[in-house]
């Protein structure tokens, strides 16, 4: 059928030598690969992946488009085939459009679980199992602190809202000083549960966005956690797949020493 003709043409074309020969990405240096990807808005990746991605991009950008108005086949060898398919006014389903969006990876965000590239060459920054759990659940820098309430004042100037914020922070300070169990907790460096504190403040008539509250506590060097109260602190217990031989033996000993 008509459609299949187009598809088979397309496939044939893909098998031919492309218009511009593909550069030897596999022989290029990592910095060069990074620069090339950067031009497409793709973040640095492991070398192998960069090579693959660049090849993919090259294939995308060096396909022929089979529509009447947009025939991008400059070489003579291609034009005859282009003519053949240009009579079809439809595009094959898998044809690339002239303006395509690359499947770009977003620039490294802190919310990723795997290690973002650090600036130091060869640096190894990772964590124990216990820290991993902290990172994904309790780290105030990673957890998206959603501001449930926002200032509803419309045309308030920056200085006005700043002074309003200052007032609220003063109120927070006064609240903490007035609540002796809370203040004692802080003085003993016991971490506060952020959401709980926000609720307590709200009950006292002090409405403060959770991010602003976190910023204030940071400025005071007051430790807080974004974990829900039910959760334990980033656990000390590691989830190990293999236990050490020694540990295993100890356990067994205990079991067998049951009174008999």
């Amino acid at each position, binding site marked *: 059928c008509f459609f299949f003709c187009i598809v088979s043409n397309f496939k044939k074309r893909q098998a031919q030598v492309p218009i511009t020969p593909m550069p030897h990405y596999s022989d290029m240096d990592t910095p060069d690969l990074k620069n090339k990807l950067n031009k497409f808005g793709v973040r640095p990746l492991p070398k192998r992946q960069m090579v693959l991605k660049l090849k993919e991009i090259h294939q995308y950008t060096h396909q022929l488009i089979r529509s009447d108005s947009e025939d991008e086949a400059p070489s003579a060898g291609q034009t005859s085939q282009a003519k053949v398919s240009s009579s079809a006014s439809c595009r094959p389903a898998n044809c690339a459009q002239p303006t395509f969006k690359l499947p770009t990876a977003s620039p490294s965000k802190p919310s990723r679980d795997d290690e973002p590239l650090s600036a130091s060459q060869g640096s190894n*920054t*990772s964590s124990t199992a216990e820290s991993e759990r902290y990172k994904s659940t309790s780290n105030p820098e990673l957890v998206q602190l959603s501001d449930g309430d926002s200032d509803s004042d419309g045309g308030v100037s920056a200085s006005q809202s700043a002074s309003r914020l200052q007032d609220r922070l003063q109120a927070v300070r006064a609240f903490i000083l007035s609540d002796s169990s809370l203040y004692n907790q802080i003085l003993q460096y*016991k*971490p506060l549960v952020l959401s709980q504190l926000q609720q307590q403040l709200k009950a006292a008539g002090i409405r403060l966005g959770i991010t602003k509250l976190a910023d204030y506590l940071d400025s*005071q060097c007051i430790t807080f956690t974004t974990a829900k109260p039910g959760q334990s602190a980033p656990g000390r217990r590691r989830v*190990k797949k293999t236990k050490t031989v020694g540990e295993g033996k100890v356990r067994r000993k205990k079991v067998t020493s049951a009174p008999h």
Partner: protein
Amino acid sequence: MVVEVESFYGVYMLYCTNPKFKGRIYIGFTVNPERRIGQHNAGRHRGGAKRTSGRGPWEMVLIIHGFPSDIAALRFEWAWQHPHSSKRLTHVTRRSRKESSLQFHWRVVSNMLRVSPWNRLPLTARWLKQEYRMDFEPSLQPPLHMPIAFGCVRAKKTPVLPSGEEQEELSWCCLCGQIVKESEKLSCFHLSCKMNCHLSCLAKRFLRSEPTQLLPVEGQCPECHRAVLWGASFATNMAASETWRKLLPLHHRATGQMSCRFNEEENYELTTSESE
């Protein structure tokens, strides 16, 4: 002489001595540094991290300890590992070409100790290996209450207090004169000094020079007038119920009391060297 510390929470830096790995650095958290370095060098099947397994040998060269809770230490660890993602370290520039990984990480941590939320914590910067020791840049000196220490440190097992009835010894606050409950009482480190007071009373006194702050850092014992660090021995863990509430002596770098000889036993006389 090894310094022993109870309720130990530390964030350390490892250095790879294998020339193949070109001075690679690893940042981690531990409650027991001696055990931890052994785990790293033994590999992931013996508790070491995957990232360091088989990429050694590793030396633990620097450790920041004195965090009052695991949560505080873990956040510090994360920020040290991801300075460019941390909200508090936007002023820390990326590693320059002439900077080694070790130098870069030292620069990052030097910055961290100076900013909130860490600059009021009772931290100690300790070089465990003399040969790697670096000085703080003149512009990146840590807060005066933070000692710079040299030599090994050992995490001491916290003795289990008899639980059950809270010993309700009656004490009076030397500042406000009211009765102090055990749960809100602070005592002086020195055994000869009988000072007792409310946490909040002494905090108020210590914060006289810093009226905008809520958490004190240092001050003078109202009875014996010795310079003290606010609760370096406060140890908290969300799961633990026991806290230690004694003021520790302060070695203030400004007054030159801090001695920097390698391997010298220093401030924490609170702990006794028990055999484990």
